[in-house]
């Protein structure tokens, strides 16, 4: 007998003569305490994210590239990983070219194996879009894909994320339902609620444990 058959057999045996419990999920418990007026969502998200060491900058569709340049220059960063295949990537590229920024724009356009060393040791910052945000917990939702692969938001020490204000949902449950996640998920979904951190030594918080030391969120208020 296989382990599988043994395990399932034992479990079935223990349940003999019983009926499965009814589904008692009560969505009010995960939604009602976590509802916000639309105008309060940004503030809620912002205050929660700032409490965990995240920079949140409200901006607009026409001025965010300028802000990115400013943020990078302030930190003396020399390169930025972003997706030229995406609309925001193109916008940034156009702005950087027009204003002759010195920061080099890098693209994640080959399998990780082909440039692991460089990605891990030389890339200083990255910029990605997000699928949306969650006000209740101060969370960004990322669905990595070919254009913005999984490691883009993890390996570089500084991660800049673009968040459209209209995509901020009250709570995770609402977002899952609104977008029907249960119908099918991509290979990887990420909820990100701050820069990487640890409290494993004496419970003292230290940022940049394995992932980004800094998380910067640009909230596009007009998008």
């Amino acid at each position, binding site marked *: 007998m296989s382990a599988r058959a043994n395990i399932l057999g034992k479990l079935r045996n*223990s*349940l*003999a*003569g*019983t*009926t499965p*419990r*009814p589904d*008692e999920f009560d969505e009010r418990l995960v939604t009602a305490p976590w509802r916000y007026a639309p105008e309060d969502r940004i503030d809620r998200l912002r205050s929660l994210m700032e409490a965990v060491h995240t920079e949140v900058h409200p901006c607009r569709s026409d001025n965010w590239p300028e802000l990115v340049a400013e943020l990078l220059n302030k930190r003396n960063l020399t390169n930025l990983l972003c997706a030229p295949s995406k609309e925001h990537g193109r916008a940034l590229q156009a702005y950087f070219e027009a204003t002759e920024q010195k920061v080099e724009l890098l693209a994640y356009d080959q399998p990780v194996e082909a440039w692991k060393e460089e990605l891990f040791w030389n890339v200083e910052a990255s910029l990605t879009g997000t699928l949306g945000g969650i006000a209740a917990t101060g969370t960004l939702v990322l669905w990595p894909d070919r254009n913005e692969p999984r490691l883009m938001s993890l390996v570089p020490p500084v991660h800049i994320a673009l968040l459209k204000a209209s995509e901020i949902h009250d709570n995770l449950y609402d977002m899952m339902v609104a977008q029907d996640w249960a119908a099918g998920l991509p290979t990887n979904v990420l909820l990100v609620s701050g820069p990487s951190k640890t409290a494993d030594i004496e419970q003292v918080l230290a940022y940049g444990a394995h992932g980004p030391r800094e998380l910067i969120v640009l909230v596009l208020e007009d998008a």
Partner: protein
Amino acid sequence: MSQLFYDAAPNATRVAPEREPERVYPDKPEAVTLFGTCVVDLFFPEAGLDAIHLLEREGVRVHFPQEQSCCGQPAWTSGYRDEAKAVARAQLDILDRAGLPVVVPSGSCAGMFRHHYRALFADEPDTLRRVEALAERTFELTEFLLKVCKVQLADRGAPSKIALHTSCSARREMNTHLHARELLQQLERVERIDHDHESECCGFGGTFSVRMPEVSGAMVKDKTRSLMDSGAVEMVTADGGCLMNINGSLEKQKESFRGRHLASFLWERINGTSEGEAA
């Protein structure tokens, strides 16, 4: 919402019982049975007598069946189910004979009647009905004074600062800490001082204190330290086990600080003296 017994099969998957609704209290009865508890009986009888005084002061007649002994808790928490059950059955018979409300001057023993007898007699439907009835009419002393007698205490003592300790199980099962606090609040010249880690266990736990003397000893040492550091001049509690543990440890440490049963403390405050002390 489905019930605990949605599926009567003994092997059905269990859910946590529904939250208990807030207890509805009856009017003050004419008479009650006092269940003294074995620890109070032998080591703190004055507290039991002061409990009787407090009840009589409220115009409640107290009945003390001489056949009573122990609620069965020591054996139950030690894993000796059969022995616990035999002793529990004996108490159940005695308490049923009078059929009066039962008042217990020790939180964990009241909890035994209110909660754990159900587990002991789960396999005897007829007894279980009697157990349910007993649970319904059992009250911890402070709860009974406050909620059923709606006692009003006039403080006659000198100004004092005290610390309150409540038995963990009693606090969690019956909110005894809230009842005791409210009673103490009625005493004008008594200030209740919070002590460090107030809600933490004193380390008694019945046979735990002799099975794991190292750990239990560390716990009671910490408890006595925070009681003494609190600035209170004495500690009061409504649980005999905790009182024995804390006072025994203080005495061993040759400290002069002591704990006292809440019943004696209250009786003294409203009279200026504890009659029980004369015993």
